[in-house]
């Protein structure tokens, strides 16, 4: 029926098109979608959409450190990357290399503690942290995602490389 056609008059005197079959189907879809709403909330609690939750952060264990990075983030949202250096009696300094692809996705808003020095290399930047007590320590990078979509980048802690990936929701 076109929107300009007159609806038929029903037996009860109402002149309206009820489309009851459509409405019944829609009520079913409506209830099904409430289930989807619940699943979305559950997934969000697990961190499937970033901003906290077990799925949002990935932990990679390397020889020299444990790296926690945002596996799932949000565009313009804040996140953290944590490098927990292990104690090593033979090392008084640690280095952290971040590839250029990392800088293309994440803006580093702050580093705690600040690196002793920074080097620019062809493939990225290297940060050096003094650790005279040789007892390890934690470096936290406060990040803000600047690009949406999947991202792959390399991180090197001391001499060990690891390829990491993140997905940034728009």
């Amino acid at each position: 029926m076109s929107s300009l056609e007159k609806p038929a008059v029903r037996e009860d005197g109402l002149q309206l098109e009820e489309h009851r079959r459509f409405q019944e189907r829609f009520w079913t879809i409506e209830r099904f979608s409430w289930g989807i709403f619940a699943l979305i909330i559950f997934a969000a609690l697990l961190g499937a959409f970033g901003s906290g939750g077990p799925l949002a952060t990935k932990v990679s264990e390397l020889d020299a450190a444990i790296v926690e990075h945002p596996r799932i983030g949000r565009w313009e949202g804040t996140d953290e990357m944590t490098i927990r250096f292990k104690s090593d009696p033979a090392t008084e300094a640690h280095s952290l290399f971040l590839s250029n692809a990392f800088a293309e996705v994440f803006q580093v808003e702050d580093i705690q503690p600040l690196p002793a020095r920074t080097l620019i290399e062809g493939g990225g930047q290297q940060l050096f942290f003094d650790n005279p007590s040789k007892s390890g320590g934690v470096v936290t990078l406060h990040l803000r995602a600047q690009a949406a979509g999947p991202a792959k980048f390399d991180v090197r802690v001391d001499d060990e490389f690891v390829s990491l990936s993140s997905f940034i929701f728009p």
Partner: protein
Amino acid sequence: MESVIRGAAIYLVLLMALRLSGRRTVAQMTPFDLVLLLIIAETTQQALLGDDFSLINAALLIVVLFSLDIGLSYVKQWAPSLGRIIDGTPTVLISDGKPDLRAFARARISLEDVLTTARVEQGLERLDQIKSAVLEADGALSIIPQET
């Protein structure tokens, strides 16, 4: 480009969420629904504007939202079946004085809701004074009294 995508995405998400949450949410507004609406308005405002508070961004968003609304009204006219999906259809809750309890349950409307509307809008005292009650596509309840 970003303003257009943001505007269109938020418009579609809101349209889907409001439609799928059921008509009760739209018209049968309780104080909690009002709070919900205010929070949604605040949330969408941030998602629409982001960090860009420029006049041109606001103007662009307004144009995008109005254009989408005009476009959808034409789509609904050309394809009434799509219009039913977007706007919904009226549901007869009481026909010839007989309540359709299945429709009441599925539409999450109580007899009390109908009696309240009947009192407020028609000055009716009892259910048997109602000939027809229709849950309109916009979520409003229409009451037609029995002829005396």
